[in-house]
């Protein structure tokens, strides 16, 4: 486990450096005995450790939504696209990491969503469709043992 966790940490550090994101994080679902809750397990460029304590139910939060729908999520401008009420109630990670623009991608294993990769900017830069594409290209459809479906990027 420690080896693979090192591997994930390295991967997201790399990704952040290569593409210039402010924050990159990785969420996984817990086992059935933990009620399938979703937690952010790795982060790069985090402001604090709040992400570690956040526990999401399926369908809640960015990771929860991506898990449930199996589709990526692109929010180019948080302030314009999400109402402040929703923002606070449903997306704690955006608040705690002060994200202003983000993309989240489902990671597949055997046609099931097993993880969520989140990349975002704080002030200034925004994630455009191009960035999104670039993110996919740089991952080459693969993230560790996970597959990234190209169809999700259209």
């Amino acid at each position, binding site marked *: 486990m420690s080896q693979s966790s090192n591997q994930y940490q390295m991967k997201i550090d790399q990704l952040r450096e290569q593409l210039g994101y402010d924050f990159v994080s990785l969420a996984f679902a817990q086992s059935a005995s933990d009620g399938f809750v979703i937690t952010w397990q790795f982060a790069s460029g985090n402001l604090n450790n709040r992400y570690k304590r*956040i526990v999401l139910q399926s369908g809640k939060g960015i990771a929860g939504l991506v898990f449930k729908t199996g589709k990526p999520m692109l929010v180019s401008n948080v302030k314009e696209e999400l109402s402040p009420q929703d923002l606070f109630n449903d997306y704690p990670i955006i*608040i705690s990491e002060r994200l202003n623009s983000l993309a989240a991608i489902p990671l597949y294993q055997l046609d099931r969503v097993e993880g969520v990769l989140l990349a975002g900017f704080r002030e200034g830069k925004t994630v455009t469709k191009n960035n999104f594409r670039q993110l996919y290209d740089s991952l080459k459809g693969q993230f560790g043992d996970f597959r990234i479906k190209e169809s999700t990027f259209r």
Partner: protein
Amino acid sequence: MIQPSAKVTTELLLKMYEKSSDAILFFDENNNVIAMNEAALSIIDPGMLTQIGSGESNSFCFTCRGYTSDDELMSCLNCYLSNSTKDFSSFQVFLETKDRGVIPYSANFQEIEVESGIRVLMLRDLTNQLLTQESLNRNTMMKSIIKAQEDERKRISRELHDSVAQEILSSLVDLRVLKYLNVQDDALQKIQQTEASLTRLLDQIRNLSVELRPASLDDLGLEAAFRSHFKWVQKNYGVIVHFTAELNGVRFNSEIETVVYRICQESLLNALKYADVDEVSVRLFESEQMLEMLVMDQGEGFNVNMRDPKGTGLGLYGMKERAELVNGELTITSEIGKGTTVHLQIPTGTASSNRKWQASE
């Protein structure tokens, strides 16, 4: 009755005309202003004054924005200047003032000389009165809204907890029984899936019920309700709440407990939203005849006096209103860069509230 001499009366009337804070204007039969006192001069725009001076008919209409009729807030229909049959001894009128914009006045319009058609308009600034009225209305309204919301939440939460959740629980038990019957493997698998999704549904309903209004608040009291709420906060927002409870399970009447719970919830929410902190501390304790709560963070803080809040600004207002519902006092101290403290004090009259609690047990 004292009969004042004519001389004294004229003198006094003149003084009143000059010094009065009510604006007094005289109109001739053509609705031209023929005289006005200092107070009127101080409110009416100089530009309008020249027009009034020019003797143009109905020039006062440039200043007047209409009066309040049965149908409209500001109306010119059947206006006091043109309609002499209607009673205008007391009405509300809006004027365009020199430097304060459109302001409501309480007005009185009377004919004082029938043959020459001279009439007098007296105006008294209504702004303060209206403001008082408005805030009184708002306060009453706020209180009933809070109460209605709380009652409704309680009802729905109870309903979810007592009937919906119970029904699901009994179906779950039935499903579990099914597993031990002689069923085929594929059926068994389906049953297990259904069991898992029902369990999740039950969880969600319970969460919903607790979010609406925790049953533990009524059944077990503030401390228990706080503990589960803080756990929830940590899970949802990753913020740790350090809770110091010094009540030792003392109970208060349900109204007070609700207020404390909601104010704590709101202050915490504010800290989570705006303070940008990892930790918040909450202390709940009793002092002489008082139930007190402190919610402290060491986050960004804000300027308490600034009337430009982040968010809607209704939160703080609602907290104060809630505190007032139980004669409590809410003090919010905050300094930019140093953090915020919310201090709530509610007089309990400890003895009586304890007795009430015991009686209801």
